[in-house]
């Protein structure tokens, strides 16, 4: 079998030479990358470097001008909108501003996909309760999004994304605008999702400390919290970094590589 075809089938997400421009502005310029099953890729870059666009392209919410995007073995770029709905049910997305349905309660928001799939009522209640317990929001079932704080809305959005056990999760700046304590709680949830359910994920973030926390921590079942990977341990967090600049991939690699990168741009980007 052709290596490229085999790659598309074996990887969770594959971008091949993807380009997109809005009028005169180049957003993505021949971008290629792959995401392994069970791995997390952190997308870094300045505002407007195309990070959120990558997530929307992955879901088929936007179309590239050229290139091929394959998600879970299906070529998103060749599918019609009506055919994409089936694939999207296997993917979860957490939007930057949460994008909760403001006319529905927390319960309605989290249960939305299950109701669409005509899951039995008892099963819906069990899974909604489980998802909300996972993000420690079990007490908010009957509240409306407007009654929640920013961090709580973000956690409900995560519960909505994971309730159907998706194979790929897309996080768009899940910690943006949150205080450090709440942001750490959210990162802990992402680590928990990665280590407990082995879900593949693309994470867009501006907060470098969150990205490094993801790469250097592991979820401990015994302590029910994330803990730093012990020094010298051979544990692989399967978390890698990709830095974007002017629509192109400037860097791709693990935490040690990015920390020791020779690139002046990356050093400047990483500097506090």
């Amino acid at each position, binding site marked *: 079998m052709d290596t490229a075809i085999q790659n598309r089938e074996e990887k969770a997400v594959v971008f091949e030479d993807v380009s997109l421009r809005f009028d005169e502005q180049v957003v993505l310029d021949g971008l290629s990358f792959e995401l392994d099953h069970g791995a997390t890729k952190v997308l870094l870059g300045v505002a407007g470097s195309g990070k959120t666009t990558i997530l*929307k392209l992955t*879901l088929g*919410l936007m179309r590239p001008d050229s290139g091929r995007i394959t998600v879970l073995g299906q070529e998103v770029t060749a599918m019609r*909108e*009506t055919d994409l*709905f*089936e694939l*999207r*049910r296997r*993917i*979860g*997305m957490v*939007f*930057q*501003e949460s*994008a*909760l*349905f*403001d006319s529905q309660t927390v319960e309605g928001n989290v249960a*939305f*996909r299950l109701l*669409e799939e005509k899951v039995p009522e008892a099963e819906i209640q069990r899974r909604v309760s489980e998802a909300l317990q996972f993000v420690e929001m079990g007490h908010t079932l009957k509240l409306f999004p407007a009654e929640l704080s920013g961090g709580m809305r973000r956690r409900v959005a995560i519960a*909505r994304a994971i309730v159907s056990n998706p194979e790929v999760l897309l996080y768009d700046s899940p910690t943006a605008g949150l205080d450090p304590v709440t942001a750490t709680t959210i990162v802990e949830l992402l680590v928990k999702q990665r280590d407990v359910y082995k879900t593949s994920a693309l994470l867009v973030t501006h907060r470098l400390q969150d990205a490094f926390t993801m790469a250097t921590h592991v979820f401990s079942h015994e302590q029910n919290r994330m803990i730093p990977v012990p020094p010298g341990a051979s544990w692989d967090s399967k978390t890698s970094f990709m830095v974007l600049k002017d629509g192109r991939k400037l860097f791709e690699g693990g935490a040690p590589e990015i920390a020791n990168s020779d690139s002046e741009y990356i050093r400047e980007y990483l500097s506090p």
Partner: protein
Amino acid sequence: MSGVPYRMAFSLTESVKGNVLAVQEYSILSWRGLANLFSQPRYLGDILQQMDTIGVGSLPIVILTGFFTGAVLALQSANSLARFGALSFTGQLVSMSMVRELGPVLTSLMVAGRNSSGMASELGSMQVTEQIDAMRALGTDPIRKLVTPRLTATMFMLFFLTILSDLVGLAGGSAIALLLLRLDLNEYWTSAWQTLRYADIFMGLIKPVLFGYIIATVGCYYGLSAKGGTQGVGRATTQAVVVASVFILAVDLFVTRLLMVLLGPL
């Protein structure tokens, strides 16, 4: 090529392209909104909820508009008819005007003012806060979930609202006939009833179905294409009402002419 002529030509081309794209997007939305009715899944609960919002919610304005239109129509027509000693034709005139023209058009304009704006602002708010994208991301077709129920409910309820408006309009006319013109009520209602033919009723009841389609598709289109935060939602709301109202009046002219040709002189 450079300078002002080039910029003008470029701007004109962009404007034409933008308008062609808008017509294309509106056509696709309108078609899919209707076609979804004939395939699963159907959101019956959402359709009923929209029927309540659009139909029952519009009752007060439709009743008031119908009543006062019928009343003023009786007053104005009596003024003209009296010159020819034909005051007894007031019932006929009110009946024909209400059933064939004013009932459907004014009811639709009222519903457009209330519901096209409501749809544009509701869907526009969802659009600018990424709730529409979230719905697509959750594997649900927003056209099927949001547009089709509004389209179905508006077409269905506007039909019955128009019948109610016609009836209330005739009642308004009868109130003027009795209280100001001192006409016999029995004569008013008999002439109003007997002058109507099936073709008049057909014309008066096909229009609200078409106008309902316009109200819902225009409202949903402007809502789903809203851009630019709350200001964009406000703009979409205004545009939806204006465009829907103009569409209704323009389509009314063409449909009336077409039906006159198809059904013969009325």
